């Protein structure tokens, strides 16, 4: 892999706490000395948060589809109506 992708892999291992204590310390020292690297780490952290947000939204869409499907079942719809 080209060096940029190797760095992304390293950042991933840092973010997911897969580096040894020693490697973590070395990496964090690089972060202190290298502003652009720190920015890339932060952007990668946000990327992972957005992937998770995307995945959760996909789940929520599926739950809504299940709800709409169940509303077509008379017994389910009747039970919901009786709650109002």
């Amino acid at each position: 892999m080209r060096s940029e992708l190797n760095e992304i892999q390293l950042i991933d291992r840092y973010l997911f706490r897969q580096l040894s204590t020693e490697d973590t310390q070395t990496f964090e020292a690089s972060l202190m000395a290298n502003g652009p690297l720190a920015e890339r780490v932060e952007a990668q952290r946000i990327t992972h948060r957005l992937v998770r947000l995307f995945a959760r939204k996909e789940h929520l869409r599926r739950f809504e589809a299940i709800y709409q499907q169940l509303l077509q079942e008379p017994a389910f719809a009747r039970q919901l109506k009786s709650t109002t």
Partner: protein
Amino acid sequence: MDHPITSLYRDSFPDFARLVRRMGGSLEQAKDSFHDALLIYLEKEKAGTLHLHSTPKAYLLGTARICWLQTLKNKPSMPLPDTLEQSPDQPESREMEENLLRSLLRTGKKCLHLLKAFYYDNSSMQDIATRFGFNGSRSATVQKYKCLEKLRNEIKTELCAAN
């Protein structure tokens, strides 16, 4: 045959909707909290941290009730794992994340699906290669990092433009 989540939904939601109504809430609020609870249930199940002391239904009803009470206090009900939590000195608002995600959905939807398969669904590289049409797991791994790079760069650009 029903998916287990559909059966659980059918069996549990009417009871929860009744509970929320009794406490003065609406059906829509009940549904939102119930969906948050389902999400927590599925994520814990996948992570192997779902410790049921009773039935799945009882767990779901209890969690949904907590989610609903939290929405009344406007607190987020689904914290992220520590490693991906935002750093306190760089707060990203929920709204900013929503805006960023909308932007990524326009330009990098395939990458979002690929990264979701890897990081969220924990699919194997071989499965991902088959599903996304890559030439083997090695190629899928490289593509995963390329996607991370692409989305990361777009996020940096969006954040720069916003500042």
